[in-house]
């Protein structure tokens, strides 16, 4: 009886000490539970499916080991989609980051129109990708599109845009840059505002011009922000789907097909879930690798004055 009281007392004491911690875990529990159910579990299931031949309609799952992964390296369309995704990522991330930084630097100057321009640049980011892609589909139309109409005014020959195997992917990249640059600007503006003015004043006293200040002060101190933008945009770029689906459907002749679109087609048009899961595993690995590399590289470049 006494022993039980002592135990009870110890438990109550432990509970009182850890009350705050328990309360904290309870608060984050819904998020963690939903993350496990809707993100972690499906991801692990997808990874496991990649080692099986999954026939959902027949309710059959057959172990095939690495067969799906080996088949990927002989799949010409998958290799094209992989190459296109890398190309898309490279162009989209680099150009949108540079544009974002340049425009953010320009917007740093005090002006009454700053808010207006920020709203104008940011609004593509908040519009639905599908809706805006459908508008751009018309803009790119070779006969009736606005782009060719403008080019005609300047006596530039009409372009096939989405109808061309050589231009389709670039046309999608242009759309994506237009869509994301506003977000980059807002994040860069926040990063620029966090840089103390005293550094610029000191540089001015030392005779540094605007370009020197930009490369010696702004860019290094903006490295954490830049790293975030690069990583975020890279993840987005690897996962591109909506605009490709709407604008070209991956064509013509697979010229603009990307990995996520190929995963979708393998899973939901050809019902090859195991194979699509293997592709997903490869995509995940690529994103993880690039993210880690970017993070390591950006840490090395980070400076503190």
């Amino acid at each position, binding site marked *: 009886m006494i022993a039980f009281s002592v135990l009870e007392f110890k438990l109550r004491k432990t509970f009182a000490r850890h009350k705050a911690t328990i309360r904290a875990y309870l608060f984050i529990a819904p998020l963690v539970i939903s993350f496990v159910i809707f993100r972690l579990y499906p991801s692990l299931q997808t990874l496991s499916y990649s080692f099986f031949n999954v026939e959902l309609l027949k309710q059959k799952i057959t172990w095939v080991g690495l067969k799906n992964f080996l088949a990927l390296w002989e799949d010409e369309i998958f290799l094209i989609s992989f190459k296109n995704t890398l190309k898309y990522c490279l162009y989209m991330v680099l150009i949108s980051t540079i544009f974002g930084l340049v425009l953010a630097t320009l917007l740093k100057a005090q002006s009454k129109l700053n808010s207006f321009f920020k709203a104008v640049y940011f609004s593509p980011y908040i519009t639905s990708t599908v809706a805006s892609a459908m508008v751009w589909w018309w803009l790119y139309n*070779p006969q009736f599109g606005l782009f060719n109409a403008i080019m005609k005014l300047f006596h530039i*020959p009409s372009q096939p845009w989405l109808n061309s195997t050589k231009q389709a992917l670039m046309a999608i990249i242009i759309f994506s840059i237009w869509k994301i640059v506003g977000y980059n600007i807002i994040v860069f503006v926040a990063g620029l505002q966090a840089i103390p003015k005293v550094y610029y004043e000191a540089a001015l006293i030392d005779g540094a011009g605007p370009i020197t200040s930009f490369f010696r002060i702004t860019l290094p101190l903006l490295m954490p922000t830049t790293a975030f933008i690069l990583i975020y945009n890279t993840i987005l770029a690897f996962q591109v789907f909506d605009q490709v689906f709407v604008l070209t459907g991956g*064509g013509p002749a697979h010229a603009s097909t990307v990995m996520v679109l190929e995963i979708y087609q393998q899973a*939901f048009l050809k019902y090859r879930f195991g194979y699509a899961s293997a592709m997903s595993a490869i995509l995940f690995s690529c994103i993880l690798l690039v993210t880690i590399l970017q993070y390591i590289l950006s840490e090395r470049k980070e400076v503190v004055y």
Partner: protein
Amino acid sequence: MWKFKIGFACFLVLMLVVAASAAGTIVLWYPSGEITSLALLFHEEGLFSDFEMENDCKVELVAQDYDFMQQKIFTALASGKNVPDILFIDQSWVPGFLKEEALEQVPEADAKDWLEAVDPVTREASDYGEGVMYAYPQYGADIYGLTWNKDYFAEAGLDPEIPPKDWEEFRDYGIKTSKKDEAGNITRVGYAIRHLGQPHGVVHKFLWALWSAGADLVTDPKALRGGEAAFNNEGGRSAAKLVWDMIYTDKSTSLDFPDPRTCLLQGLASMQISETISIQTRQPVEAPNLKWGMSMPPPKEEGSESATNYNPWVYVVPKASQNKELAWKAIKWINSKEKDYQFCMKYRMTPRYKENWEREPLASDPYIVALRAMIPYARPYPNNLGLNGVMEALGSALQKIWHNESSIEDALNEAERLANKAIEEAAQ
């Protein structure tokens, strides 16, 4: 206490209503939008009301977006939840579902009756070998034909009533009826080609050329399994080259006009080859002043046999349906001889029953008479379970050829390899 009793009674009544409405309900999925004018039928008020009264049931008609319909069907079947009882789908989807063993076979006796009563082309489209049926084709033969703008023919000095008689003349007409601006850019194509979008769609609008050149998709079109690709030969290469020549040699067409039907209706093309039913339905609304002609696509040589595709929409019942018997009953009812005649009269479409072809006004309607002349040359798609893979392979090859990304030989060699792989995998 009395409030509780009233509340409980209301609850009971509600449960009874729900139970009554749930009992004997069959769900039919069809594609929404303008993807097929044959789905207009499902917009009719009280379409199934007589059937519902006779069988004490409810038929729920659900429109699905065509672009995602296959995925939705697959998801419903795989999950076993909200499984539709009847699907109204493109016949080219059927092999894919058969490969997954997802479709119910039409009861033997019903299949026998149907095959005996319908015209030869409908019979061929319905028969999956030895009298086995999985689907009932809809009325309104979706036959691919050559349609042309009569005014443009006249403008070019051609007889507006007479189509080109062979491929050589087809190319010549293409050159004569195309138009260019001062800079040499094509503003009106002689013949509009489909080269974008899903590879299947590209193949649909190419089959007339493939078949009339003596090639085919697979070696045994009726067999569900086995066979091999039959397009990588002299016929297949000449068919692919025909369009290539029109783009790059004749310069009478271009890749900038990828929607053939819309181009014809908007006056951007003089000729196109695709579903005649689509032009017949859309022209009065979208191009009321268009004077158009319709005929079989031109054969390779004058006097040789022409061929074209017949791509019906079909009614099928998934194996996962909970109301199979009622579903087949509803399908039989909507596809009865009288209903066939009634709908064909109303929508001005071709019937399926032999007897209905002879009934007025169908027997003397000019559009239906014209299609009747074409129907003997129409072929349905092969039954092969690997058809999706075959069409994907060939469609991708055609896109590469016409975009000058690959030579005809290389593209068709690669397509043959992929198509045979798809056939082999489907046969396992």
